[in-house]
């Protein structure tokens, strides 16, 4: 599956548009997790647990978008956009990752 952010595929012809496909996932870092990563920082080992989890949440969203596009019979997604939203209110610990694009099929 070809996933692009560009609106066209240069040198290839798009034969059919299947419409919008989306994928999203939530990343809820609990207070305890924060606490223990803080503890780990103190004990010595530097951690970027949050960044790792962010990457895995993004990959999950990407995968669910890809599955939807495959179900529609597309072989590429164009005009893809990635957005991160903060859902946590005053605690601010929940992050939503959304990915959306247009499922198309192009001539190989």
């Amino acid at each position, binding site marked *: 599956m070809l996933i692009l952010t560009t609106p066209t595929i240069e040198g290839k012809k798009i034969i059919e548009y299947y419409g919008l496909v989306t994928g999203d996932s939530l990343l809820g870092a609990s207070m305890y997790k924060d606490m223990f990563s803080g*503890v780990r920082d103190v004990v010595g080992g530097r951690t970027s647990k949050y960044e790792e989890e962010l990457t895995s949440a993004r990959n999950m969203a990407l995968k669910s978008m890809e599955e939807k596009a495959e179900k529609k019979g597309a072989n590429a997604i164009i005009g893809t956009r990635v957005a*991160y939203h903060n859902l946590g209110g005053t605690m601010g610990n929940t992050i939503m990752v959304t990915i959306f694009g247009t499922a198309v099929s192009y001539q190989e």
Partner: protein
Amino acid sequence: MLASRKNFLIENRWAITAVILGFLVGFTSAVICVVFQLIIFGFNIMYILSPLSAGVVETVIARRKYGKSTGAISALLTFIVINIYGWFFPGWFYPKGPVTLSFITLIAIGLTIDAAFPIFTRYVLKVVVVGSFIRFISFLLNLPSIILGNPPVVEGGEIIIGQPSDEIYLDGLTMPLVSVPHVDGGEIKKYVGLVIGEAIVEEKKSGGRFSNLLKTIQPKKLDDMNLGEARRLAISRMLDNAKSMGANTVLEVLINYVSVGGLQGNAFIVSASGTAVIYE
């Protein structure tokens, strides 16, 4: 001037009515409590009952007629009035003993402060209390090494790891990064796919709890964040992804900033996304 004031009164007539009615209900209940000496656990129940009933009446009327809550102004007014009466003029209206500081007064004061300044109390509960708890735990964890005489090395607050990519690194690329989908004068050999890079930057923690409390009401300074470094890190991670997939450049690079963290301290997610291609 007069017309605008009149308009304001007409628009907010239900809010004002709700506040006045709530205050009247609270005041009446306080008077009843004083007259009949409704005392439980050696404590007049008006200190809890009157602000509560005032707040309930006000909120119900405001929700029904005004459409939204007015923020329990009458509860605060009632609380102030009966406390002035209880602390400074005991026995003026009806003979009774003065207010003494007890567990119940403390709870009542806490509840009223929470109704008046919700963000402040939430900051105290969720940030100051939790933060003190975390400090206590880390102190306990560090205790053995302090006793043994070699305190652990605590590194700075920034979570920035990996190779630093600076402007020189970006200038050294054979093909510049562009934020447009098409570049004239060349040919895209092959599309490789979507590449993303992320970095999290935390606000520099400086000073104690008090200055952090002040920061919640002060405007932010750009110097407090290491945003440039985080942006370079996000771009370099994206480029690393692209290189590992066999591409030689990235088209249509977009950079996004999202604020996370709420009251517990500020952090930013910086993300860079683009389309990796083989370009000639």
